[in-house]
């Protein structure tokens, strides 16, 4: 593995981890909300949150591009904070986070929906606040589903391409992740140099999926037990 390959893998892992860390608290709260809230607008909210799963990644990338544009409210906020997202590793993190968010939300929602809401009631009669019942009962019981979803979302973030290339470009050493590097090398006619990267992504994705499966199985076993 060349130094350049190493740099690509490092950037890929770090940005995928960053995206997952950024998503985790938001997605857990969103998943919990969707599982517990039965009011009007729930289905609509769920659909909007799931859109990145079905839209072409380039479409999502274009929306992000628009949202981050210098004149937009979000762009101005970032500008005021001195945060530069476009064509930086932060752009990679943002694009992968947006694209993998629905996977995590959906896993979290399923995991929270499986927790009997009456346990929350019992916890509250035992002195726990609503928030306390979330931390002490719902989150621990949903944890395995959330972790399995986190691993899946991480795997999704690893391979993000379409949205990333639109808002972060394909700058070696700066924003070039594994997916972008493979594309780049194939485009340059250096297929032979792309294969080691394919092997690497396969290895990382394999490990992630295997971990998610293991967690899922352990969970099923416990439910049955």
């Amino acid at each position, binding site marked *: 593995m060349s130094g350049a390959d190493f740099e690509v893998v490092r950037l890929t892992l770090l940005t995928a981890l960053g995206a997952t860390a950024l998503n985790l608290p938001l997605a857990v709260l969103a998943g919990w909300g969707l599982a517990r809230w039965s009011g009007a607008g729930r289905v609509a909210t769920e659909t909007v949150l799931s859109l990145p799963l079905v839209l072409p990644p380039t479409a999502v990338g274009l929306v992000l591009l628009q949202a981050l544009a210098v004149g937009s409210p979000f762009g101005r906020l970032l500008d005021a904070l001195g945060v530069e997202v476009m064509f930086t590793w932060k752009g990679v993190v943002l694009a992968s986070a947006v694209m993998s968010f629905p996977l995590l939300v959906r896993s979290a929602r399923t995991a929270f929906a499986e927790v009997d809401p009456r346990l929350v009631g019992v916890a509250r*009669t035992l002195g726990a606040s609503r928030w306390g019942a979330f931390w002490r009962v719902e989150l621990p019981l949903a944890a395995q589903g959330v972790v399995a979803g986190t691993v899946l979302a991480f795997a999704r973030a690893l391979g993000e391409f379409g949205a990333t290339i639109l808002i972060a470009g394909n700058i070696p050493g700066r924003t070039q992740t594994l997916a972008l590097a493979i594309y780049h090398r194939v485009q340059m006619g250096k297929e032979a140099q792309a294969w080691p990267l394919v092997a690497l992504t396969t290895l990382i994705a394999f490990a992630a999926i295997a971990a998610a499966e293991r967690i899922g199985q352990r969970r099923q076993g416990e439910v049955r*037990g």
Partner: protein
Amino acid sequence: MAELDVDISLPLSQFVLQARFRSRSPALAVLGPSGAGKTSLLEVLAGLRPRAKGTVRMDGAPLPEDPERRSVGYVPQDALLFPHLTAEDNLRFGLHGRPDADRRLAEVAEMTDVGGLLRQYPHTLSGGERQRVALARALAPQPRLLLLDEPLASLDAELKQRILPYLFRVRDEAKVQLVYVTHHWGEARLLADEALLMRGGTVVAQGSTQEVLSPKALADVGPLPDADNVIRGAWEATKEGPALRVRGGLLWVPTAEAEPKGTATFLVPAEDILLSTRPLEGISARNVFPAAVRDVAAVGTDAWVRFEGCGEEWWARLTPASVRELGLTAGTPAFAAIKAHAFRRLR
């Protein structure tokens, strides 16, 4: 005991739950057919139904809105232990941050006899063990009011017999006001001194268990569930062996012990009691005593007869034909015969 003053309403899918009652009873039974709103009433008392209107007061002071500040213990029908916590951590849940947590844990574990189960997870416990852990968990923070939702309903007859004595202990020792939901009026009569009868979301009768739990009142409410007699007495040694001393005499009951001591509780199924309008002689049943019939009601294919004998109140389940032939009505003098082996020990 504090005065529980309830005046609430809550729209449910079939009807509006509208309960208005006051009680100072240390143990109040809430009876009624399934779907009468009993569980919803308990949830309102526990503060778990934020949409409920009205007030719940104890000694005149309204209970706080938030369930966590109500000091109300709740034992749901299916125990609902926290599956990710050991029995001990379930018991400790409500003792979070209390300096006396260890002492309380030991006290409630002793009272419900769950000391040997503390390290187990709920899925390894039997139904009866889960109920006891749920009971201990609700008692641990010393609530003022303890709500029990059919704690025996999901258990088979043998397990029921094992849990009942713990309920007695809680009632007698825990210094907590009980509200006990059941559709089994043998249990209600045994555990509670006051009863509420509910139907279609409203309270249709309230009074002493003896008043409310009459065959007629229950026939009015719906099909009668199992109505075993539950008899408590003290052991007494006699020349013919140990016998059970009840309010108005001695009963012959089976025991494997030579010299049993203290008190014992027995269950006598209502269908195991014979009634006769003539004195009984030459009969193998060990317990034969005069019976004063108080009331009779026909419900479906059964005739229920409530009578007094040996200072206790009994229920017998006969056929309408035998009630007709014997001419049993309120006030009929009769004789009851019960085999010793019809008495099943609750332990």
